[in-house]
């Protein structure tokens, strides 16, 4: 088990860097310009990747939170907290890249479209998930309250996914192929999207492992401090 873990830790960084290099090449050079939007459409490749990482992170938080509420074991709280931190990072970047893309295409940095609004709510849910721990004195109570938020946030993930189909908004669904030259009609565009999604998923996995390592070290520090208490 230990050998397998260290092999993953050894291979993950170079593989991520290689795939990321290929993804950036395809997104910025290899894929052709979009017929309607021109080069600015290339933001799409990184924007979509941010959402894959965000959904993976918050999905993990939901699962870890549920397991924490059932089992009350520290490890699931640690996984949830690490996932929430990373999810918040990628969610912030997803909102920011979307806003930068919206300005030249929609003519505005932000609009209260159902999907965008629900995404902002998602950001707030997981920001509250992390803040709650500092606001509640009892760490176990803080972890339990945060876990309830972590589970409820998954409902918002589903709503975000469905928003473009249920409510009329300005945000489009992903167009994979559309007659008339728009959408991801070109194989190089699809390759750029797939590589970008894969690269940022690998980056998310790598960062998650680093964050969990840090959480384990913090756990060691806390245990050693407890052993030294009350003198420390």
């Amino acid at each position, binding site marked *: 088990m230990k050998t397998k873990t260290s092999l993953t830790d050894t291979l993950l960084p170079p593989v991520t860097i290689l795939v990321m290099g290929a993804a*950036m090449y395809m997104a*910025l050079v290899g894929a052709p310009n979009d017929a309607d939007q*021109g*080069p*600015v459409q*290339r*933001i799409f490749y*990184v*924007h979509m990747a*941010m959402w894959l990482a965000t959904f993976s992170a918050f999905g993990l938080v939901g699962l870890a939170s549920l397991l924490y509420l059932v089992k009350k074991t520290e490890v699931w709280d640690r996984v949830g907290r690490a996932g929430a931190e990373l999810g918040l*990072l990628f969610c*912030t*970047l997803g909102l*920011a*890249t979307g806003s*930068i*893309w919206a*300005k*030249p295409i929609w003519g505005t940095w932000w609009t209260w479209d159902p999907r965008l609004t629900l995404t902002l709510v998602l950001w707030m849910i997981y920001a509250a998930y992390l803040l709650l721990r500092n606001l509640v004195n009892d760490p176990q109570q803080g972890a339990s309250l945060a876990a309830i938020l972590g589970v409820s946030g998954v409902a918002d993930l589903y709503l975000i996914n469905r928003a473009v189909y249920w409510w009329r908004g300005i945000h489009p669904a992903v167009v994979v192929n559309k007659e008339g030259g728009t959408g991801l009609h070109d194989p190089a565009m699809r390759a750029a999207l797939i590589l970008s999604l894969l690269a940022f998923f690998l*980056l998310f996995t790598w*960062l998650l492992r*680093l*964050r969990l*390592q*840090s959480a384990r*070290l*913090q756990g*060691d*520090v806390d245990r*050693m*401090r407890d*052993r*030294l208490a009350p003198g*420390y």
Partner: protein
Amino acid sequence: MNLSYLFAAYALVWVAVLLYVTSLARRGRELEREITELRALLAERDSRPADTP
């Protein structure tokens, strides 16, 4: 051409990821240093005779 928007989006992502990785690395180094110090303190305490204050 709107290239400035394209540049801004990718630059923002990479700057944020690099800052996050840097903060993780710094946090890891601080924790390792703290663990070394705490281990030394624990070893010192455990090596003292039981009745020493």
